[in-house]
């Protein structure tokens, strides 16, 4: 559990760092450092909470900021990494809550397997991102729209895969 906490803290720190790199030039670095420090402390406090809402809000905030930075035309790589790290921190935090809510058998194995899967998410995302950065495609609006619709339908299928229940985080 300690390892997971450390991982979550490091991942969120990384996310803030990459987001700060993305915002360099918009704000003086002192302000960026101050905002980053405050956000980091808030996240550390949220790590102690048994509820998922603080983590969800923090992830929403990071995604919102990356969206804003991308809109302003900042470096895509930093923003991607910020998103990836924030997602990892959010996931680790949720998993900590899940483990803390009940007795766990073979905790070490469960955590190791989860981290492997999270690692595979990071690697596959990074590979796809690198591929996407070097891919130059000229899409017209219609092809883009069709691709978007196909992607949306795929996502809808994934989100509705007979997985109706969220795990209980406060079972004790």
């Amino acid at each position, binding site marked *: 559990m300690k390892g997971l906490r450390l991982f979550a803290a490091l991942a969120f720190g990384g996310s803030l760092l990459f987001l700060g790199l993305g915002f360099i030039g918009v704000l003086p670095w002192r302000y960026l450092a101050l905002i980053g420090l405050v956000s980091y402390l808030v996240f550390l406090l949220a790590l102690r909470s048994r509820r998922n809402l603080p983590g969800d809000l923090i992830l929403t905030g990071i995604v919102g900021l990356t969206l804003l930075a991308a809109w302003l035309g900042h470096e895509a790589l930093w923003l991607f990494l910020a998103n990836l790290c924030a997602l990892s921190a959010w996931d680790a935090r949720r998993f900590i809550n899940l483990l803390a809510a009940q007795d766990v*058998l073979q905790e070490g194995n469960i955590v190791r397997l989860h981290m492997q899967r999270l690692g595979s998410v990071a690697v596959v995302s990074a590979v796809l991102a690198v591929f996407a950065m070097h891919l130059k495609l000229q899409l017209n609006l219609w092809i883009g729209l069709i691709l978007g619709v196909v992607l949306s339908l795929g996502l809808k299928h994934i989100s509705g895969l007979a997985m109706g229940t969220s*795990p209980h985080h406060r079972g004790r």
Partner: protein
Amino acid sequence: MPARSLLVVFTYILILVGLVTLNGTFFMLALPFIVYLVVGTLDGSHAHTYTARRRVHPYRNRVGEPIAVQVEVTCQGEGQCLVQVRDDLPQGLSLVQGSASILSRLRCGEQVLLEYQASGKRGVMDFPPLEIIALDALALSGHTTHVPAPAQVVVLPYAPKVRHVAIRPRRTQVYAGNIPSRVGGRGVEFYGVRHYQAGDALRHLNWRLNARHPEALFTNEYVRERVAEVWLILDARLRSEMYRSGESFFEFSVMAAASLAQAILTEGNRVGLLVYGGFLDWVYPGYGKVQEEHIARTLARARTGESLVFAHLEHLPTRLFPLHSQIILVSPLHPEDASLLIRLRARGYNLIVLSPDPIAFEAREMRLEEDGDWALRAAQLERRLLFAKLRQAGVQVLNWDVSIPFEAGMHRVLMRLPPWHFLQGVRA
């Protein structure tokens, strides 16, 4: 918002913005979420089936004593998955030790054991089906299955020990016991004198009388001690219930009834129980430990209820009670109950009313102003008048201030017969 929905919303927003602005960066930002969602679904956890077996020890217990629960869940199916097993405790039971939820990885044919201790309020409780959530690869969401693992727990009411309950009904049973009957024979208390009959023990000869009348021999007779039939009536009408800081007043009545039943049965008497509330629930009179268990179980499931028919004691099924038997009513008493109790007494029943004090119970946490104090005094006066009226009719009324423990507050009162019992010559 569920975790999966949150990620799906982020993804949709990023894709939508990317489409609107025709900017590939937004698609790239959506990549981690898309991959995360796809990896999360790569688990066939919903293909598993489960069986569960529950063991509860002991299945019957007293209020406040722990009950050990063990649930064994077996997984059937292919592959392995992360499983969250949750056992929802029935209403009235609360967790004392351990956890009613467990997280484990299960392979086909493997078992997981959930162990915890619970204790509960009085009642008969059935465990609901077990909730098993097979989580997906990243524990983002799960497939819920409800698996039956039936078991019943009986939490009996707390019954403080009372050593003796002094009762003196006019009618007794044939078996030897502790209650003086109206028949001469072997016993302890002096009953009378009769002519000597062959076979009488010489130590029972009345030597003084023999000296005065040398022409005949006289022998002492003693009061035979027998067991009696006692009917306990528990008032479970809704009007007899009230709550203060979550504490139920009816529980005191149940506790008193359980304690009385235990004490009277221990002395070898026949005891029956009638729960008079929303409906009638009764246990026919009987002896011994088995009867004690029957009564305790009936008391465990006793609930207050409202009924138009049984709103007043007028519909008490008096045919259940043999004439001249002992009746003990446990009730907070209402003024309109007096007429029936007096009628019962007039018919020859020996009647004890054990009345937990509702006024003291309610007034304890009230901050009474001057007017409230007057109201309290008026209510107490009304109650005392009701008691006086009943005592005048020969009903033994015992008031119990529930702030004093039953065994401490009622021990002395229950041990003795009222003084007027002897004055009236009711004694055998």
